[in-house]
């Protein structure tokens, strides 16, 4: 936080500080509520609140575009996914939330360790040190590179941050941008394969057929086509997803 504030133009007045604290408190409080509430649906609602307040934090950083995206994608689409999963498992399944003492202690210890390390790094004896990008940073020597990213971002004053995002995304980060398309493709394939409906009964004659074929000829035909679909349907019979009736 300190470091980001150092980079930010100091023009922002007390209003920004107030807004920051309001959103920060809401974000933290709702995050704690998410992991402590017994009712999963209440937890999900708290998560929405958390997403919204993080959107607010983006706003105080003058990145309205990211803020809107945060609300639309996280507060909207991803929350819908969360709720669907909750409804898929059933709202009354609070046994999913049981954790034994050892897990609990480990989780708390791990979280405390991470939080402590981050706090120490930022608020420890090093706070007074300027970051490379801070206003107090020493001038870069010959052959050294000065701060690259943050300063540019703050020079942009139009397009609510989206223009800057577009400029860097479509020039410097062309390659990861195209990789992101592959990532979404893989995600699509995964969604189609793994979440395919499983509510059909097995067709045994097809399976017997397959078994015979497999015994005959190990290099024979594969499972494409109708027989493949039958094999898959058979999976549905004993798979864990057979409880989805009555939706």
């Amino acid at each position, binding site marked *: 936080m300190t470091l980001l504030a150092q980079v930010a133009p100091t023009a922002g007045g007390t209003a920004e500080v107030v807004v920051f604290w309001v959103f920060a408190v809401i974000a933290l409080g709702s995050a704690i509520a998410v992991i402590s509430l017994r009712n999963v649906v209440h937890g999900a609602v708290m998560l929405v609140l958390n997403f919204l307040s993080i959107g607010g934090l983006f706003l105080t950083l003058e990145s309205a575009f990211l803020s809107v995206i945060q609300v639309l994608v996280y507060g909207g689409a991803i929350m819908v*996914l969360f709720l*669907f999963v909750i409804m898929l498992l059933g709202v009354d399944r609070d046994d999913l939330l049981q954790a034994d003492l050892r897990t609990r202690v480990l989780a708390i210890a791990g979280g405390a360790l991470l939080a402590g390390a981050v706090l120490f790094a930022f608020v420890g004896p090093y706070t007074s040190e300027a970051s490379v990008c801070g206003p107090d940073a020493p001038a870069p020597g010959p052959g050294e590179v000065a701060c690259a990213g943050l300063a540019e971002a703050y020079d942009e004053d139009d397009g609510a941050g989206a223009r800057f995002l*577009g400029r860097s995304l479509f020039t410097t980060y062309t390659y990861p941008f195209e990789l992101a398309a592959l990532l*979404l493709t893989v995600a699509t394939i995964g969604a189609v394969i793994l979440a395919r409906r499983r509510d059909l009964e097995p067709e045994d004659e097809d399976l017997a057929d397959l078994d015979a074929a497999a015994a005959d000829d190990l290099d024979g035909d594969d499972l494409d086509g109708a027989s493949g679909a039958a094999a898959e349907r058979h999976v549905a019979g004993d798979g864990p997803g057979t409880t989805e009736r009555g939706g």
Partner: protein
Amino acid sequence: MLAEYLPILLLFLVASAFAVGSVAVSSLVGPRQPNPTKLSAYESGNEPLADVPGTRFSVKFYMVAMLFLIFDIEAVFLYPWALVFRELGWFGLGQMALFVGILGVAFIYEIGRGGLEWD
């Protein structure tokens, strides 16, 4: 800077005040004459059974939502691209064509595999 968002804040405040106010006023002002029949849950004239797991959704909803999310993210990329489109010129056009083309293949695959069929 933040002052620009003051109207939005006001809108939020008014909206929440209206929501809370409506509930509060109706519970304060409206007449209340409860009786057992009114309070019981109505389910085709029968008493509802206690623990029917009827609130579960099918996995099909989840898949549609997930696929929606994937193409939602594609749309998110389009916005900053549109803002700097002129500066990027043909390079930007080719870049986005490749991106949309790759996702187009994913989309065709999804349709071909029946990812969008309900039954």
